[in-house]
């Protein structure tokens, strides 16, 4: 049994123009200690998937229309609020994209880390402090004991993201969801944070669900990759397979957008068009209007995920011919 099992998950939002599905029929597994990358454009449903797993979407307007999320054998989609509270933190923790606004400006970072421990464990003040300092050292904050008294505005973006990681990991979660953890950071800092994530995974043995739109981040860190488009999974593969032989035209398009030093190209090949609005999704394959291999029968029905090799699936009915 996997640590996290998502089955046929559909998350819908009630809007003024009717109900839209942000995530549709998404299934995947995540094993202990594994890093699963989820890639896709903005609006492809990556973050909504993560927030659904965490139970952080406001209901209404959001609701889990179908499917289930099993974490360590427990179905999270119908848990009580108080039970979910105990899962968040020691079970599943999350780091967000924006380290500048994810810390409370009126408390010191030490307070905020100790606060998180105190929410789940009864410990004397001294033990809380020691645990927080230890965690700050683990995420690479120098002279951690004195930095405990710092306020968020005294830290750089990279340091804040380290503090966010410390807050997320201080309860030793089994699963860490990182929603674009490096997007807001400088490139050099991005690499440091990703290295740190890998180190922490090795040390704590937690699984990581890494959400990003950056193929480079995926290549460096993930073990397995899921590519999402317009709310659905279009391809899933081990990271090496995905980069060596991407099968879905969308994945191929995404990889062609990445500049490379090895193969010389005059221009990057962009995918024409934009992601369809959820209310105006085309019939059949949602990528067909932007796909250079599209055939008339692509509009006939939503293509199912086809198994191409062990661990490699893609949702395109024309894969054999490409």
């Amino acid at each position, binding site marked *: 049994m996997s640590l996290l099992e998502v089955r046929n998950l559909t998350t819908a939002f009630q809007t003024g123009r009717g109900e839209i599905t942000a995530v549709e029929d998404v299934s995947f597994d995540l094993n202990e200690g594994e890093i699963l990358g989820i890639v896709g454009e903005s609006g492809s449903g990556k973050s909504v998937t993560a927030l659904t797993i965490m139970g952080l979407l406001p209901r209404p307007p959001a609701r889990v229309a179908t499917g289930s999320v099993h974490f360590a054998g427990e179905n999270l989609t119908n848990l009580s609020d108080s039970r979910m509270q105990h899962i968040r933190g020691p079970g599943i923790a999350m780091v967000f994209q924006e380290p500048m606004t994810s810390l*409370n400006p*009126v408390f010191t970072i030490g307070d905020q880390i100790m606060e998180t421990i105190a929410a789940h464990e009864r410990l004397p003040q001294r033990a809380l402090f020691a645990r927080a300092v230890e965690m700050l050292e683990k995420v690479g904050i120098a002279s951690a004991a004195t930095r405990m008294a710092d306020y968020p505005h005294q830290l750089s973006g990279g340091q804040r993201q380290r503090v966010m990681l410390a807050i997320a990991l201080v*309860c030793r979660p089994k699963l860490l969801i990182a929603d674009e953890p490096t997007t807001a950071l400088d490139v050099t800092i991005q690499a440091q944070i990703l290295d740190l994530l890998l180190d922490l995974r090795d040390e704590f043995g937690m699984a990581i669900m890494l959400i990003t739109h950056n193929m480079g981040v995926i290549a460096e860190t993930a073990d397995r990759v899921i590519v999402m488009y317009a709310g659905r999974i279009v391809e899933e593969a081990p990271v090496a397979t995905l980069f060596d032989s991407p099968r879905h035209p969308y994945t191929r398009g995404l990889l062609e957008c990445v500049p490379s030093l090895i193969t010389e190209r005059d221009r990057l090949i962009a995918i024409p068009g934009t992601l369809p609005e959820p209310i105006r999704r085309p019939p059949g394959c949602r990528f067909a209007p932007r796909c250079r291999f599209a055939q008339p029968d692509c509009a006939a029905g939503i293509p199912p995920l086809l198994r191409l090799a062990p661990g490699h699936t893609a949702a395109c009915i024309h894969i054999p011919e490409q």
Partner: protein
Amino acid sequence: MTAPEEIRQSPFNVTLRRLMHHRLFLLGLGLVSIVAIAALLAPWIAPVDPNKLAMRFKFRPPDGDFIFGTDNFGRSLWSRVIWGARLSMFIGSAVVLINAVCGTAIGAAAGYFRRLDNILMRFNDALMAFPAVLLAIAVTAVLGPSVNDVIIALGIVYTPRTARIVRSSVIVLREMEYVQAAVAAGAGHWRILRRHILPNAMAPLIVQLSFLFAYAVLTEATLSFLGVGAVPPTPTWGNIMAEGRQYMIDAPWIIAIPGVALMITVLGLNLLGDGLRDVLDPRLRIQS
């Protein structure tokens, strides 16, 4: 801009230092302090019973014997005004306290729990639709004219305003990423409200409460002037002015002195509030 030496200081110290450089705030603080100290020291600096009648001294203008003169019953105006300050300050503080507690509770509940929002805020709107003085008169008419009842009446009148301010801060703060991060780290509603939302909602609340103190003092004076506040001969500024009104031509000091005291208090509190607003909530500052 943040000065470099402010970087390693707690927000409280930074705020305090900025306040100490705000001239109008200091002036307001000075005026309010004068009134507050006079109120606190009333038994010592005004030992004469403010209700002691001495008909042979009636209508004495301010002089060496009677610093503020005497009224139509020969009562020492100095004593009456100082003891009036004591009452005004007491009523103002009590109303602010009631507002801070009830307004924060109602506002936080309405802002944080969407389901409560409509019920609480429509009730709030209904209360705010009444003119403050009229509503206060209505409440004192039901409860009776005593100092405690005036406090309750003013508490009811002004709590909706405080609740509204707190609610709007909470609605903004509820959507902040650090609140979501706290939820993601397994914090419960109470912890999130207490640790993440309310501390960040304090700045506009403190500003509001300082103005509210001024309104409470002013409205209390209005109520007793109209004869629906604390019953005479209780020495409130409003009562003294109401009695002095008949002798305005012959003994103008009777109405003027409590009037000036009231003005100093309200002006001081407003300057104090402006200063707090400039420092705590710079976005609201009027561009000069």
